[in-house]
């Protein structure tokens, strides 16, 4: 764990500024409270979410090489706040890093813009989700010290998002084997209680919402229902696309699985923000579709002495 302050090039992604604006806002607020400096990459482009790679792999690789190059221009490592960005960008980075001739070919397309992506040395330039950065670079001990409103009594179900847990080999699990239990560690560090349920590392269904609506909503509805049955007060996710299916589509998912749902789904920075003393309104929680009132009541009831 480094004792230095965190300063990173920050790629917010598309959805955090689109249908989940509360995510971008709460990330900014939490960074301020943690003393992190975020250099926002406001000229960077969409990661392609796997869809552009499905269409034309070289196009996806070049688009993400551009984002990496923009980040490298700041002299900083990069942070994202979306599991899908993490997965889609790691996929492109893996191909770019594997072969210098391919990398040169991709960089040729960027040369006209004065950009170039350089492969980092082992442990050098990295692109990490907020979750990874929080645990690996900032450290859970420092996080614990910052907690002013422990989430005592709050029962939280983790929901990772596929792109940040699989495939393990691409996502650096050989160096960081615990990356698929970081959410549990963060929940505990914030004073909350981890709820174990079947869906934590499964798929929210979002990628096929326009193509196979029933398959998609059945996945979302099943996981939310399982978490409710396991006694969760809320879910927490580092992925805004998961949030769209688990929260925004929750009333529709309830129809498909034919049961009442109604479970708050928090973005990771919101959960951290609550423990750091931010108010639910500052964290945009009123923008959610599934009511977060129960979470707020729980926290007021368990306010620190």
């Amino acid at each position, binding site marked *: 764990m480094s004792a230095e302050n965190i300063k990173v090039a920050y790629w917010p992604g598309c959805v955090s500024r689109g249908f989940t604006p509360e995510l971008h806002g709460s990330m900014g607020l939490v960074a301020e409270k943690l003393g992190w400096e975020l250099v926002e990459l406001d000229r960077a482009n969409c990661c392609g979410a796997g869809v552009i790679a499905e269409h034309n792999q070289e196009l996806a690789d070049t688009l993400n090489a551009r984002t990496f190059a923009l980040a490298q221009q700041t002299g900083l490592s990069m942070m994202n706040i979306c599991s899908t960005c993490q997965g889609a960008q790691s996929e492109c980075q893996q191909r770019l890093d594997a072969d210098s001739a391919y990398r040169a070919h991709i960089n040729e397309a960027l040369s006209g813009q004065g950009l170039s992506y350089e492969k980092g040395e082992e442990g050098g330039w990295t692109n990490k989700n907020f979750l990874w950065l929080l645990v690996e670079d900032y450290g859970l001990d420092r996080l614990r010290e910052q907690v002013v409103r422990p989430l005592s009594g709050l029962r939280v179900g983790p929901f990772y998002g596929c792109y940040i847990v699989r495939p393990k080999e691409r996502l650096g699990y050989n160096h960081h084997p615990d990356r698929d239990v970081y959410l549990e560690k963060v929940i505990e560090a914030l004073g909350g209680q981890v709820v174990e349920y079947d869906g934590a590392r499964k*798929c929210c269904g979002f990628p096929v919402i326009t193509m196979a609506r029933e398959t998609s909503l059945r996945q979302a509805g099943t996981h939310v229902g399982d978490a409710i049955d396991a006694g969760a007060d809320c879910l927490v996710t580092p992925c805004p696309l998961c949030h769209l299916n688990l929260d925004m589509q929750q009333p529709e998912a309830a129809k498909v699985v034919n049961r009442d749902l109604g479970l708050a789904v928090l973005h990771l920075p919101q959960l951290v923000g609550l423990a750091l003393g931010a108010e639910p309104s500052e964290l945009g929680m009123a923008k959610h579709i599934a009511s977060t009132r129960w979470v707020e009541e729980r926290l007021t009831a368990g306010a620190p002495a």
Partner: protein
Amino acid sequence: MADYTIKVRRFQPESDEGPYWEEFNVDLDPSLSVLDGLLQAKDRDDGSLAVRCSCRAAICGSCGMKINGQSGLGCKTQIGEAQEQADKMKAATGVSAAAADSPIRGEGADAGSAGNPIVIEPMGNMPVIKDLITDMESTHWTKIRRVTPWLLPHGEPPEREYIVEPESMIDITQSMACIQCGACVSSCLSMEADPGFIGPAALAKAYRFVGDPRDAETHERLHDLADDPHGIYDCTHCFSCIDACPKGVAPMDQIMRLRRKAGEEGIEDPNSGHDHEIAFVKIIEKKGTLDESLLLQESFAPGVKGKLKPSKRAIREMLGSIPTAIRGIKTGKMRSLHKLIPGVHPKLPDQDDVKAIYAHAEEHNEEFNLYIKGEEGELAEDDVEKGIERSTAPAGQEADK
């Protein structure tokens, strides 16, 4: 040698009882396999413990199972590693993997942070016949047959064998490595939600023939798989099959290649799969970041500006999304013009740079397959001296089954 506790989900069809957990203590070297542990328990404790196996070397594909919730081969998973995984999950969640991945709760989930039982279950998405033996027919072989897994050449067969350039077969070597173990089917999260999904094993097999230069019905095959509501557009892109596959087939990658080929063939599907892909790609070309409302509209009614001709299904989907939009407006999530009106989304300041990237990539469209090409520096020097190029398939591949 070390002691391990393996906790097996058992089922005896001849008894009237449902599935139950049973623990066995085994003693073997950490580098030996989970299958070795099971066979030791069968040998020493209970000969009725049922498990399928043959080669013990990850070639025959018989011993597919779930180990700590992860689908794979019993013979390819070291028992020492399985123990580490069981301990890690227990430490993080306070619950053993048994409770995490199964509706049945058993005894013995309260051990300390080390020495937790290694949880072994039969494969998922398949009926269980006995203990760890599943019925592969109903969900695996039936679906394999569904994709016509044989060559369909046209014209007179040649007098002797078909001759093809080796380079033209490289594209399908990855899908040929499949040993039909069913681990990917066991792990498939789309199939969990939609049992009708053709699934990862069968679709990877479909690519094996779609990519084969000798096959003459490529278009028909792609059309069939794109048309089916349980076909290539029913895959939820969860990567589970990639991590489950013991042979590096990466079935999900093959499904994405089927989608790409279907697009290249200009196949319009009733699932809006192709329209969604094209809409996404075009929006980023135009704006640089995602215009979500335009994506929704263009996925269902492409080319709205010129010729609006959405299908009945598209109209139903569009109408169906209205309640969601209204909820979003109410909470303030979508309360701005550029989120409500398709196309108002602002473009990036240097969008011309993004467009230049499109122009460059569309000239090439190179695919970089790590399975085939490997990573730099992977080959031993004497291989290089022998003139083995990186573009050849990796050593040790089995022939197609």
